[in-house]
């Protein structure tokens, strides 16, 4: 059967409404067994969201001021890791997931190689059994040119760290988180994700024309393997950006804990995620709860929670802690900026 959408809906499929996740409770859900199951799942989200917002334990997010990529990154990250009370690393296989969506000369699109190198150094210092860097770029059939063009190849080579193109990393099916991918029961995900003991989402801090902001949650789009789903990861757009961002996060954390380190030393404002302008922000952020980290970083970019669908829905559905957050480290006031908003489709 054909799927029919108007143009506006198509654009919203590329940047879907989070509210629809909740407003979609209708007569169908009340009359068929699958609908009832869906209703129960969604009511469960709402209860968990209320509980987290009012009585849940606060999440901790650590901030650091770091003016440049040139020096002191490892010291800075070591301090952040400690302040944020990150999980144990010793003996664990760690997948580090930078944002390598594409490389276009002159635009700060990707996670800075210097930050990634320092994160790898820190993880090894903390006793990680294995550190692998991987991403599945959404716009490039072959990740290697992106790795070279953004300067990452040199950093990885100097440290003898393997890079895995997650688009071709022996995808296998795992259960899809209930309620976030419609009728889809399983997601095919890459081997190094399935086998990881810890996932470090390491995004570039930037604006995004469909999602509002692209931080550690949106960064997880790159875990979906193109070899099965194609380039770009259109299945996620068709499913709805908000539900896909939160669904991918829950799929990943069902396999291993996901923590965040955000590269906001140079951020991107305006027409992100590709053609925005650099913003000298001087921010590094870390935390063991990506929803909390992203909520804090979005705030530091000048976005309210209500401007970012997936963070608003994450709060309402109790996907993570988006409201009760303990911020430690550098002064939040010194790190506040007002990023130029991305163009949005009506």
């Amino acid at each position, binding site marked *: *059967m*054909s*799927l*029919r*959408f*108007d*143009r*506006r809906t*198509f*654009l919203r*499929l590329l940047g879907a409404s989070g509210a629809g996740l909740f407003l979609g409770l209708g007569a169908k859900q009340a009359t068929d067994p699958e609908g009832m199951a869906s209703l129960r799942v969604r009511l469960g989200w709402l209860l968990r969201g209320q509980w987290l917002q009012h009585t849940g334990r606060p999440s901790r997010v650590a901030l650091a001021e770091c003016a440049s990529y040139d020096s002191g990154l490892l010291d800075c990250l070591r301090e952040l890791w400690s302040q944020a009370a990150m999980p144990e690393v010793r003996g664990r296989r760690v997948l580090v997931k930078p944002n390598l969506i594409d490389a*276009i000369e002159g635009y700060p699109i990707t996670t800075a190689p210097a930050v990634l190198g320092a994160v790898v150094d820190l993880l090894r210092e903390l006793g990680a059994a294995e550190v692998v860097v991987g991403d599945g770029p959404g*716009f*490039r*059939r*072959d990740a*290697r*040119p992106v790795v070279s063009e953004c300067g990452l190849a040199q950093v990885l080579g100097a440290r003898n760290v393997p890079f895995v193109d997650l688009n*071709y990393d*022996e*995808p296998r099916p795992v259960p899809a988180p209930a309620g976030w991918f419609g009728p889809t029961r399983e997601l*095919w995900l890459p081997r190094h994700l399935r086998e990881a003991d810890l996932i470090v989402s390491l995004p570039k801090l930037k604006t995004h*024309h469909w999602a509002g902001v692209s931080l550690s949650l949106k960064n997880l789009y790159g875990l979906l393997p193109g*070899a*099965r*789903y*194609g*380039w*770009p990861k*259109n*299945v996620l*757009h*068709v499913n709805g950006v908000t539900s896909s961002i939160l669904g991918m996060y829950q799929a990943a954390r069902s396999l291993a804990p996901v923590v965040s380190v955000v590269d906001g030393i140079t951020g991107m404002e305006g*027409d992100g995620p*590709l*053609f925005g302008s650099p913003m000298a922000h001087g921010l590094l952020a870390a935390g063991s709860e990506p929803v909390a980290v992203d909520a804090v970083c979005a705030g530091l970019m000048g976005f309210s929670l209500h401007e970012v669908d997936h963070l608003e829905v994450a709060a309402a559905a109790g996907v993570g802690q988006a409201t009760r957050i303990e911020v430690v480290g550098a002064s939040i006031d010194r790190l506040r900026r007002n990023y130029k908003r991305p*163009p949005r*489709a009506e």
Partner: protein
Amino acid sequence: MIEQAVSYLEVTQNGDGGWGYFGGQQSAVEPTSAAVIGLAAASRDRLAREAAMDWLLSAQNADGGWGLTMGDGDSGWQTAWALLALDGYGLAAAVVERGRNWLLAADFLHFQETDVGQDKDPVLGIDLKLNGWPWQPGQATWVEPTALALLALRHPPTGAQPRLNEAVAYLLDRRCQGGGWNVGNPYMFGAALPARAQPTALALVALTHSLVEAITTSDLETLHRESHHEGTAWATALSALALRALDEDVTEEQASLRALQGGDGGWEGSPYATGLALLALSGEL
């Protein structure tokens, strides 16, 4: 050089008859098909090819299409690769026909006629009335699966021509500013996204067989520039295939491939890249 490449494919062939994208990986439809096509072009290793053909035949889904690998029941863009590999394999005629039927029927995301309008979409800069093929049914359509489908359906059954014609128009509409193609997003909010080597090469091969006069000098310049810039065997092999299809000189690309061949006879540790390189050195897609 060819013999070494064939040996590499023999060594990396999985026990089930297929190949993975990289040596030691699970068999998948795209690399297996590329290896089969490369071996066929080089007229080598009939037995390895037949084992791979058997794997491809076994991997076909009940609906006639192919997914990522054996056991992936969601048929998708990989169907075109399997058809390209199986085409001409006499015993598989019925299999090919079912595959072609699946591909021709593969549905995509539709837009309401009242909303697509007469002009190009203001945000995406494309004509939403035109469609090619999606990576998976139900999604929007994109350049690479469209080009592959056009190649796999070069000898279309009766009634298929309108969809193929639209797919050609789709490719022309999605051309990037300055020539060439990327995934299928030439513009976003007024910004021009750059063309890339792989989709440009595949679109050019597809257009060579369907509307060669639509190919411009800018497309070829873009292909040269991007494949040189990437410098990988994969991009170079696809570039050579596109240029050869257009009767252009491929001496430089073939020399690059020779220089990039690994000591094990393969390219980039990848049966997929090796299959493409073998094809680029020996034949046509």
